[in-house]
Protein backbone atom coordinates (compact mmCIF):
# COMPACT_ATOMS: atom_id res chain seq x y z
CA UNK A 1 0.00 0.00 0.00
CA UNK A 2 1.21 3.51 -0.77
CA UNK A 3 2.65 5.22 2.29
CA UNK A 4 0.77 8.08 3.95
CA UNK A 5 3.89 9.52 5.57
CA UNK A 6 7.39 9.32 4.12
CA UNK A 7 10.28 10.70 6.13
CA UNK A 8 13.61 10.67 4.37
CA UNK A 9 17.04 11.74 5.60
CA UNK A 10 15.76 14.21 8.19
CA UNK A 11 18.29 15.81 10.53
CA UNK A 12 17.72 18.34 13.27
CA UNK A 13 19.92 20.27 15.63
CA UNK A 14 19.39 23.35 17.75
CA UNK A 15 21.83 26.25 17.77
CA UNK A 16 21.65 27.82 21.22
CA UNK A 17 22.66 31.41 20.57
CA UNK A 18 22.20 32.39 24.20
CA UNK A 19 24.74 29.72 25.20
CA UNK A 20 27.46 31.03 22.92
CA UNK A 21 26.15 29.34 19.81
CA UNK A 22 26.34 25.84 21.25
CA UNK A 23 25.18 23.18 18.78
CA UNK A 24 22.73 20.67 20.19
CA UNK A 25 22.24 17.74 17.82
CA UNK A 26 18.82 16.10 18.17
CA UNK A 27 18.47 13.47 15.43
CA UNK A 28 20.18 12.63 12.15
CA UNK A 29 19.07 10.68 9.12
CA UNK A 30 15.54 9.88 10.25
CA UNK A 31 13.91 7.70 7.61
CA UNK A 32 10.52 6.17 8.15
CA UNK A 33 7.41 5.22 6.20
CA UNK A 34 3.93 4.78 7.60
CA UNK A 35 1.09 3.21 5.62
CA UNK A 36 -2.63 3.88 5.82
CA UNK A 37 -4.17 2.01 8.75
CA UNK A 38 -0.81 1.48 10.39
CA UNK A 39 0.26 2.64 13.85
CA UNK A 40 4.02 3.07 14.24
CA UNK A 41 5.26 3.61 17.77
CA UNK A 42 8.49 5.48 18.40
CA UNK A 43 10.59 3.81 21.07
CA UNK A 44 13.81 4.62 22.85
CA UNK A 45 14.87 6.30 26.05
CA UNK A 46 13.80 9.76 27.13
CA UNK A 47 15.84 12.41 25.33
CA UNK A 48 16.38 10.27 22.23
CA UNK A 49 14.29 12.66 20.14
CA UNK A 50 10.88 10.98 19.95
CA UNK A 51 8.87 14.12 20.66
CA UNK A 52 11.13 16.17 18.42
CA UNK A 53 10.37 13.84 15.53
CA UNK A 54 6.62 14.33 16.04
CA UNK A 55 7.10 18.09 16.23
CA UNK A 56 9.03 18.08 12.96
CA UNK A 57 6.29 16.11 11.23
CA UNK A 58 3.68 18.57 12.54
CA UNK A 59 5.84 21.52 11.52
CA UNK A 60 6.47 22.96 14.99
CA UNK A 61 10.17 22.32 14.60
CA UNK A 62 12.08 23.15 11.45
CA UNK A 63 14.41 20.58 9.97
CA UNK A 64 18.00 21.08 8.81
CA UNK A 65 17.77 18.63 5.92
CA UNK A 66 15.62 15.91 4.41
CA UNK A 67 11.95 15.59 3.46
CA UNK A 68 8.75 14.90 5.36
CA UNK A 69 6.01 13.99 2.89
CA UNK A 70 2.47 13.82 4.22
CA UNK A 71 0.02 12.52 1.64
CA UNK A 72 -3.14 14.60 1.91
CA UNK A 73 -6.27 13.74 -0.07
CA UNK A 74 -5.28 16.28 -2.73
CA UNK A 75 -1.61 15.36 -2.95
CA UNK A 76 1.63 15.24 -0.98
CA UNK A 77 2.96 18.14 1.09
CA UNK A 78 6.61 18.29 2.14
CA UNK A 79 6.38 19.75 5.63
CA UNK A 80 10.14 20.36 5.58
CA UNK A 81 9.78 22.98 2.87
CA UNK A 82 6.07 23.92 2.83
CA UNK A 83 4.92 27.51 3.32
CA UNK A 84 3.07 28.43 6.53
CA UNK A 85 -0.20 28.53 4.57
CA UNK A 86 0.31 25.03 3.23
CA UNK A 87 1.08 23.71 6.71
CA UNK A 88 -1.98 25.40 8.22
CA UNK A 89 -4.15 23.88 5.52
CA UNK A 90 -2.55 20.46 5.98
CA UNK A 91 -3.21 20.60 9.73
CA UNK A 92 -6.78 21.67 9.24
CA UNK A 93 -7.69 18.96 6.76
CA UNK A 94 -5.25 16.08 7.01
CA UNK A 95 -2.79 16.10 9.89
CA UNK A 96 -3.83 15.92 13.55
CA UNK A 97 -1.78 16.11 16.74
CA UNK A 98 -2.89 14.80 20.11
CA UNK A 99 -0.83 15.62 23.16
CA UNK A 100 -1.59 15.11 26.81
CA UNK A 101 -1.78 18.84 27.40
CA UNK A 102 -4.81 20.94 26.66
CA UNK A 103 -4.17 24.52 25.64
CA UNK A 104 -7.41 25.74 27.17
CA UNK A 105 -9.24 28.64 25.63
CA UNK A 106 -11.08 30.65 28.25
CA UNK A 107 -14.88 30.69 28.10
CA UNK A 108 -15.29 27.98 25.45
CA UNK A 109 -17.11 24.87 26.71
CA UNK A 110 -15.61 21.40 26.44
CA UNK A 111 -18.28 20.33 23.95
CA UNK A 112 -17.88 23.44 21.77
CA UNK A 113 -14.12 23.00 21.74
CA UNK A 114 -14.50 19.51 20.30
CA UNK A 115 -17.29 20.51 17.89
CA UNK A 116 -15.13 23.40 16.61
CA UNK A 117 -12.34 20.96 15.83
CA UNK A 118 -14.67 18.82 13.71
CA UNK A 119 -16.32 21.85 12.08
CA UNK A 120 -12.92 23.16 10.98
CA UNK A 121 -12.63 20.15 8.77
CA UNK A 122 -16.00 20.78 7.19
CA UNK A 123 -18.29 18.46 9.16
CA UNK A 124 -21.81 19.84 9.54
CA UNK A 125 -23.01 21.06 12.94
CA UNK A 126 -25.23 18.06 13.76
CA UNK A 127 -22.71 15.42 12.82
CA UNK A 128 -19.94 17.28 14.67
CA UNK A 129 -22.06 17.57 17.81
CA UNK A 130 -23.14 13.93 17.82
CA UNK A 131 -19.57 12.75 17.32
CA UNK A 132 -18.34 15.05 20.08
CA UNK A 133 -20.96 13.71 22.50
CA UNK A 134 -20.19 10.12 21.71
CA UNK A 135 -16.45 10.70 22.23
CA UNK A 136 -16.97 12.43 25.59
CA UNK A 137 -19.13 9.48 26.60
CA UNK A 138 -16.60 6.88 25.51
CA UNK A 139 -13.91 8.78 27.40
CA UNK A 140 -16.05 8.89 30.54
CA UNK A 141 -16.19 12.66 30.87
CA UNK A 142 -19.23 13.30 33.12
CA UNK A 143 -22.07 14.90 31.17
CA UNK A 144 -22.49 17.73 33.70
CA UNK A 145 -19.05 19.03 32.61
CA UNK A 146 -19.72 19.18 28.88
CA UNK A 147 -21.14 22.69 28.86
CA UNK A 148 -18.36 24.11 31.06
CA UNK A 149 -14.99 25.52 29.96
CA UNK A 150 -12.30 22.91 30.77
CA UNK A 151 -10.00 25.39 32.54
CA UNK A 152 -11.36 24.27 35.92
CA UNK A 153 -11.38 20.52 35.14
CA UNK A 154 -8.96 18.07 36.73
CA UNK A 155 -5.80 17.20 34.78
CA UNK A 156 -7.25 13.85 33.70
CA UNK A 157 -10.52 15.40 32.53
CA UNK A 158 -8.70 18.07 30.52
CA UNK A 159 -6.55 15.39 28.96
CA UNK A 160 -9.60 13.40 27.87
CA UNK A 161 -11.23 16.53 26.39
CA UNK A 162 -8.04 17.04 24.44
CA UNK A 163 -8.07 13.45 23.20
CA UNK A 164 -11.68 13.86 22.07
CA UNK A 165 -10.69 17.03 20.25
CA UNK A 166 -7.87 15.21 18.46
CA UNK A 167 -9.95 12.18 17.49
CA UNK A 168 -13.18 13.88 16.44
CA UNK A 169 -11.98 14.99 13.00
CA UNK A 170 -11.22 12.73 10.04
CA UNK A 171 -7.51 13.44 9.71
CA UNK A 172 -5.65 11.01 7.46
CA UNK A 173 -2.58 11.16 9.65
CA UNK A 174 -2.54 11.42 13.45
CA UNK A 175 0.44 12.13 15.68
CA UNK A 176 -0.03 10.85 19.22
CA UNK A 177 2.29 12.33 21.84
CA UNK A 178 1.68 10.21 24.94
CA UNK A 179 -2.09 10.57 24.89
CA UNK A 180 -2.51 7.88 27.57
CA UNK A 181 0.04 9.22 30.06
CA UNK A 182 -1.44 9.32 33.58
CA UNK A 183 -4.86 7.95 32.53
CA UNK A 184 -6.42 5.17 34.60
CA UNK A 185 -6.88 1.67 33.17
CA UNK A 186 -10.50 2.20 32.07
CA UNK A 187 -9.67 5.34 30.11
CA UNK A 188 -6.47 3.88 28.69
CA UNK A 189 -8.58 1.07 27.31
CA UNK A 190 -11.02 3.63 25.85
CA UNK A 191 -8.15 5.39 24.04
CA UNK A 192 -6.86 2.07 22.72
CA UNK A 193 -10.34 1.42 21.28
CA UNK A 194 -10.32 4.85 19.60
CA UNK A 195 -6.95 4.06 18.05
CA UNK A 196 -8.32 0.77 16.71
CA UNK A 197 -11.28 2.64 15.20
CA UNK A 198 -8.87 4.99 13.42
CA UNK A 199 -6.87 2.04 12.12
CA UNK A 200 -10.00 0.52 10.66
CA UNK A 201 -10.72 3.86 8.96
CA UNK A 202 -7.26 3.72 7.36
CA UNK A 203 -5.68 6.51 9.39
CA UNK A 204 -1.88 6.44 9.56
CA UNK A 205 -0.60 7.04 13.09
CA UNK A 206 2.77 7.75 14.64
CA UNK A 207 2.80 7.68 18.42
CA UNK A 208 4.77 7.77 21.62
CA UNK A 209 3.45 5.59 24.45
CA UNK A 210 5.35 5.02 27.66
CA UNK A 211 2.79 2.56 28.92
CA UNK A 212 4.11 -0.82 27.76
CA UNK A 213 0.73 -2.50 27.76
CA UNK A 214 -0.81 0.17 25.50
CA UNK A 215 2.23 0.14 23.26
CA UNK A 216 2.04 -3.62 22.74
CA UNK A 217 -1.64 -3.44 21.88
CA UNK A 218 -1.63 -0.56 19.40
CA UNK A 219 1.77 -0.86 17.71
CA UNK A 220 2.05 -2.52 14.33
CA UNK A 221 5.75 -1.71 14.47
CA UNK A 222 8.03 -0.21 17.08
CA UNK A 223 10.84 1.94 15.73
CA UNK A 224 13.72 2.53 18.11
CA UNK A 225 14.76 6.14 17.48
CA UNK A 226 18.25 5.63 18.93
CA UNK A 227 19.13 4.36 15.47
CA UNK A 228 18.57 7.94 14.28
CA UNK A 229 21.00 9.33 16.86
CA UNK A 230 22.76 12.42 15.57
CA UNK A 231 26.48 11.97 15.27
CA UNK A 232 28.24 14.35 17.61
CA UNK A 233 29.42 17.41 15.74
Amino acid at each position, binding site marked *: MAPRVEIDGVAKS*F*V*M*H*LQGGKLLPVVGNVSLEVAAGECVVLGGPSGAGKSSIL*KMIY*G*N*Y*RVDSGHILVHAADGPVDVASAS*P*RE*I*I*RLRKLSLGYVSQFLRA*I*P*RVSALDLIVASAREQGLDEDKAASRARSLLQRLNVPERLWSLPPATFSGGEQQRVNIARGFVADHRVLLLDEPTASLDAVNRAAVVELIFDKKRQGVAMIGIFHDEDVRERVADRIVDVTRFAARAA
Partner: protein
Amino acid sequence: MITDDQPLLTARGITKMYGRHVGCTDVSFDLFAGEVLAVVGESGSGKSTLLSVLSTRLEPTAGTVCYRMRDGEMRDIYRLNEAERRLLMRTDWGFVHQDAREGLRMGISAGGNVGERLMAIGSRHYGEIRATALDWLGRVEIDLARVDDAPKTFSGGMRQRLQIARNLVTQPRLVYMDEPTGGLDVSVQARLLDLLRGLVADLGLAVVIVTHDLAVARLLSHRIMVMRAGRVIETGLTDQVLDDPREPYTQLLVSSVLQV
Protein backbone atom coordinates in the same frame (compact mmCIF):
# COMPACT_ATOMS: atom_id res chain seq x y z
CA MET B 1 -10.84 30.46 5.75
CA ILE B 2 -7.51 30.26 3.96
CA THR B 3 -8.68 28.99 0.62
CA ASP B 4 -8.06 31.90 -1.70
CA ASP B 5 -5.07 31.67 -3.98
CA GLN B 6 -4.52 35.37 -4.48
CA PRO B 7 -3.17 37.54 -1.71
CA LEU B 8 -5.35 40.27 -0.24
CA LEU B 9 -2.37 42.51 0.47
CA THR B 10 1.16 42.49 -0.91
CA ALA B 11 3.99 44.59 0.51
CA ARG B 12 7.23 44.85 -1.44
CA GLY B 13 10.43 46.49 -0.26
CA ILE B 14 8.74 48.81 2.23
CA THR B 15 11.23 51.34 3.54
CA LYS B 16 10.51 54.38 5.66
CA MET B 17 13.26 56.83 6.58
CA TYR B 18 12.86 59.66 9.06
CA GLY B 19 15.62 61.86 7.69
CA ARG B 20 18.70 59.70 8.21
CA HIS B 21 17.03 57.58 10.83
CA VAL B 22 15.59 54.23 9.71
CA GLY B 23 11.94 53.55 10.56
CA CYS B 24 11.71 50.26 8.73
CA THR B 25 13.63 48.88 5.82
CA ASP B 26 12.98 46.48 2.94
CA VAL B 27 9.93 44.70 4.36
CA SER B 28 8.11 42.35 1.98
CA PHE B 29 5.26 39.91 2.61
CA ASP B 30 1.92 38.64 1.30
CA LEU B 31 -1.23 38.48 3.40
CA PHE B 32 -4.14 36.26 2.40
CA ALA B 33 -7.83 36.49 3.23
CA GLY B 34 -8.54 35.14 6.71
CA GLU B 35 -4.89 35.14 7.69
CA VAL B 36 -3.63 36.70 10.93
CA LEU B 37 -0.08 38.03 10.83
CA ALA B 38 1.60 39.17 14.06
CA VAL B 39 4.45 41.66 13.84
CA VAL B 40 6.50 41.34 17.02
CA GLY B 41 9.53 43.18 18.34
CA GLU B 42 10.50 45.63 21.02
CA SER B 43 9.95 49.39 21.07
CA GLY B 44 11.82 51.05 18.23
CA SER B 45 11.94 47.88 16.11
CA GLY B 46 9.92 49.57 13.35
CA LYS B 47 6.74 47.55 13.77
CA SER B 48 4.48 50.57 14.35
CA THR B 49 6.10 52.45 11.46
CA LEU B 50 5.37 49.46 9.24
CA LEU B 51 1.73 49.40 10.35
CA SER B 52 1.39 53.10 9.56
CA VAL B 53 2.81 52.60 6.07
CA LEU B 54 0.54 49.60 5.39
CA SER B 55 -2.54 51.55 6.44
CA THR B 56 -1.74 54.68 4.35
CA ARG B 57 -1.08 56.76 7.45
CA LEU B 58 2.55 57.29 6.52
CA GLU B 59 3.87 57.36 2.96
CA PRO B 60 6.85 55.02 2.44
CA THR B 61 10.23 56.30 1.27
CA ALA B 62 10.40 53.29 -1.06
CA GLY B 63 8.38 50.19 -1.83
CA THR B 64 4.79 49.40 -2.74
CA VAL B 65 1.66 48.21 -0.94
CA CYS B 66 -1.03 46.67 -3.11
CA TYR B 67 -4.53 45.65 -1.99
CA ARG B 68 -7.13 43.49 -3.71
CA MET B 69 -10.26 45.63 -3.88
CA ARG B 70 -13.75 44.16 -3.54
CA ASP B 71 -14.01 44.01 -7.33
CA GLY B 72 -10.94 41.73 -7.37
CA GLU B 73 -8.51 44.25 -8.81
CA MET B 74 -5.07 44.69 -7.17
CA ARG B 75 -4.45 48.40 -6.59
CA ASP B 76 -1.43 50.29 -5.31
CA ILE B 77 -2.89 51.96 -2.24
CA TYR B 78 -0.66 55.00 -2.64
CA ARG B 79 -2.07 55.59 -6.12
CA LEU B 80 -5.71 55.63 -5.11
CA ASN B 81 -7.40 59.00 -5.24
CA GLU B 82 -8.49 60.57 -1.99
CA ALA B 83 -12.14 59.45 -2.30
CA GLU B 84 -11.15 55.85 -3.07
CA ARG B 85 -8.70 55.79 -0.20
CA ARG B 86 -11.23 57.17 2.26
CA LEU B 87 -13.87 54.65 1.16
CA LEU B 88 -11.37 51.82 1.62
CA MET B 89 -10.49 52.94 5.14
CA ARG B 90 -14.13 53.39 6.09
CA THR B 91 -15.47 50.15 4.72
CA ASP B 92 -13.07 47.39 3.83
CA TRP B 93 -10.43 48.20 6.44
CA GLY B 94 -10.44 48.68 10.17
CA PHE B 95 -7.80 50.11 12.47
CA VAL B 96 -7.79 49.29 16.18
CA HIS B 97 -5.57 51.67 18.13
CA GLN B 98 -3.87 50.83 21.39
CA ASP B 99 -5.44 53.95 22.89
CA ALA B 100 -9.17 53.67 22.26
CA ARG B 101 -9.46 57.47 22.50
CA GLU B 102 -7.70 57.70 19.12
CA GLY B 103 -10.23 55.39 17.49
CA LEU B 104 -13.43 56.66 19.14
CA ARG B 105 -15.31 59.90 19.41
CA MET B 106 -15.30 60.29 23.15
CA GLY B 107 -18.12 62.81 23.36
CA ILE B 108 -20.81 60.98 21.39
CA SER B 109 -22.79 57.94 22.52
CA ALA B 110 -21.63 54.33 22.17
CA GLY B 111 -24.44 53.69 19.69
CA GLY B 112 -23.42 56.81 17.78
CA ASN B 113 -19.81 55.65 17.60
CA VAL B 114 -20.87 52.43 15.92
CA GLY B 115 -23.61 54.03 13.80
CA GLU B 116 -21.32 56.76 12.50
CA ARG B 117 -19.29 54.30 10.42
CA LEU B 118 -22.51 53.01 8.87
CA MET B 119 -23.70 56.52 8.08
CA ALA B 120 -20.34 57.28 6.49
CA ILE B 121 -21.04 54.60 3.90
CA GLY B 122 -24.53 55.78 3.17
CA SER B 123 -26.91 54.22 5.72
CA ARG B 124 -29.72 56.66 6.46
CA HIS B 125 -32.45 54.65 8.16
CA TYR B 126 -32.26 55.53 11.87
CA GLY B 127 -34.05 52.41 13.09
CA GLU B 128 -31.78 50.07 11.12
CA ILE B 129 -28.63 51.89 12.18
CA ARG B 130 -29.64 51.70 15.81
CA ALA B 131 -30.56 48.02 15.52
CA THR B 132 -27.20 47.21 13.91
CA ALA B 133 -25.36 49.24 16.54
CA LEU B 134 -27.18 47.37 19.33
CA ASP B 135 -26.37 44.06 17.68
CA TRP B 136 -22.67 44.95 17.62
CA LEU B 137 -22.64 46.22 21.19
CA GLY B 138 -24.01 42.81 22.14
CA ARG B 139 -21.39 40.99 20.13
CA VAL B 140 -18.61 42.83 21.95
CA GLU B 141 -20.39 42.22 25.27
CA ILE B 142 -21.32 45.78 26.14
CA ASP B 143 -24.46 46.09 28.27
CA LEU B 144 -27.16 47.36 25.90
CA ALA B 145 -28.38 49.73 28.60
CA ARG B 146 -25.20 51.75 27.95
CA VAL B 147 -25.99 52.44 24.27
CA ASP B 148 -26.71 56.11 24.87
CA ASP B 149 -23.73 56.70 27.17
CA ALA B 150 -20.54 58.26 25.84
CA PRO B 151 -17.32 56.19 25.97
CA LYS B 152 -15.71 58.74 28.25
CA THR B 153 -17.82 57.11 30.98
CA PHE B 154 -16.55 53.60 30.02
CA SER B 155 -13.72 51.54 31.52
CA GLY B 156 -10.59 50.88 29.43
CA GLY B 157 -11.73 47.38 28.47
CA MET B 158 -15.21 48.57 27.44
CA ARG B 159 -13.72 51.37 25.34
CA GLN B 160 -11.52 48.87 23.55
CA ARG B 161 -14.48 46.58 22.86
CA LEU B 162 -16.47 49.55 21.57
CA GLN B 163 -13.60 50.49 19.27
CA ILE B 164 -13.64 46.96 17.89
CA ALA B 165 -17.40 47.13 17.28
CA ARG B 166 -16.98 50.48 15.49
CA ASN B 167 -14.37 48.90 13.23
CA LEU B 168 -16.22 45.69 12.45
CA VAL B 169 -19.69 47.09 11.80
CA THR B 170 -18.92 47.75 8.12
CA GLN B 171 -17.77 44.14 7.66
CA PRO B 172 -14.16 44.90 6.72
CA ARG B 173 -11.94 42.22 5.20
CA LEU B 174 -8.71 43.55 6.73
CA VAL B 175 -8.13 44.97 10.19
CA TYR B 176 -4.92 46.53 11.46
CA MET B 177 -4.36 46.34 15.20
CA ASP B 178 -1.73 48.26 17.12
CA GLU B 179 -1.14 46.66 20.55
CA PRO B 180 -4.91 46.20 21.06
CA THR B 181 -4.48 44.73 24.56
CA GLY B 182 -1.69 47.06 25.68
CA GLY B 183 -2.32 49.08 28.80
CA LEU B 184 -5.23 46.91 30.01
CA ASP B 185 -5.39 44.91 33.23
CA VAL B 186 -4.47 41.26 32.75
CA SER B 187 -7.99 39.92 33.36
CA VAL B 188 -9.42 42.52 30.96
CA GLN B 189 -6.76 41.56 28.40
CA ALA B 190 -7.74 37.89 28.58
CA ARG B 191 -11.40 38.67 27.94
CA LEU B 192 -10.56 40.97 25.03
CA LEU B 193 -8.21 38.43 23.47
CA ASP B 194 -10.80 35.72 23.76
CA LEU B 195 -13.39 37.98 22.13
CA LEU B 196 -11.00 38.95 19.33
CA ARG B 197 -10.05 35.34 18.68
CA GLY B 198 -13.70 34.38 18.26
CA LEU B 199 -14.59 37.36 16.03
CA VAL B 200 -11.55 36.94 13.78
CA ALA B 201 -12.35 33.26 13.23
CA ASP B 202 -16.12 33.76 12.77
CA LEU B 203 -15.76 36.64 10.34
CA GLY B 204 -12.73 35.23 8.51
CA LEU B 205 -10.86 38.51 8.94
CA ALA B 206 -7.36 39.14 7.70
CA VAL B 207 -5.42 40.90 10.44
CA VAL B 208 -2.04 42.55 10.80
CA ILE B 209 -1.48 42.85 14.53
CA VAL B 210 1.48 44.65 16.05
CA THR B 211 2.35 43.44 19.53
CA HIS B 212 5.32 43.06 21.81
CA ASP B 213 3.44 40.33 23.69
CA LEU B 214 4.33 36.85 22.40
CA ALA B 215 1.35 35.32 24.23
CA VAL B 216 -0.98 37.54 22.19
CA ALA B 217 0.79 36.47 19.01
CA ARG B 218 0.52 32.79 20.02
CA LEU B 219 -3.19 33.01 20.70
CA LEU B 220 -4.28 35.07 17.69
CA SER B 221 -1.87 34.68 14.80
CA HIS B 222 -1.12 32.11 12.10
CA ARG B 223 2.20 33.68 11.16
CA ILE B 224 4.80 35.85 12.85
CA MET B 225 7.31 38.41 11.58
CA VAL B 226 10.01 39.34 14.08
CA MET B 227 11.41 42.84 13.62
CA ARG B 228 14.56 44.38 14.98
CA ALA B 229 16.14 47.73 14.15
CA GLY B 230 13.73 48.27 11.26
CA ARG B 231 14.31 44.90 9.59
CA VAL B 232 12.37 41.64 9.50
CA ILE B 233 14.88 39.17 10.96
CA GLU B 234 12.74 36.03 11.16
CA THR B 235 9.39 34.94 9.81
CA GLY B 236 7.31 31.76 9.78
CA LEU B 237 4.43 29.79 11.18
CA THR B 238 3.63 31.13 14.67
CA ASP B 239 4.25 27.95 16.64
CA GLN B 240 7.41 27.27 14.63
CA VAL B 241 8.94 30.66 15.39
CA LEU B 242 7.96 30.42 19.07
CA ASP B 243 8.85 26.73 19.61
CA ASP B 244 11.97 26.67 17.46
CA PRO B 245 13.29 30.24 17.15
CA ARG B 246 16.31 30.44 14.92
CA GLU B 247 17.75 33.94 15.19
CA PRO B 248 19.70 34.97 18.31
CA TYR B 249 17.36 37.90 18.93
CA THR B 250 14.22 35.74 18.58
CA GLN B 251 15.71 33.19 20.97
CA LEU B 252 16.30 36.01 23.43
CA LEU B 253 12.71 37.28 23.06
CA VAL B 254 11.20 33.83 23.53
CA SER B 255 13.44 32.96 26.48
CA SER B 256 12.61 36.26 28.15
CA VAL B 257 8.94 35.34 28.58
CA LEU B 258 8.16 34.38 32.16
CA GLN B 259 6.62 30.91 32.46
CA VAL B 260 3.71 30.72 34.84
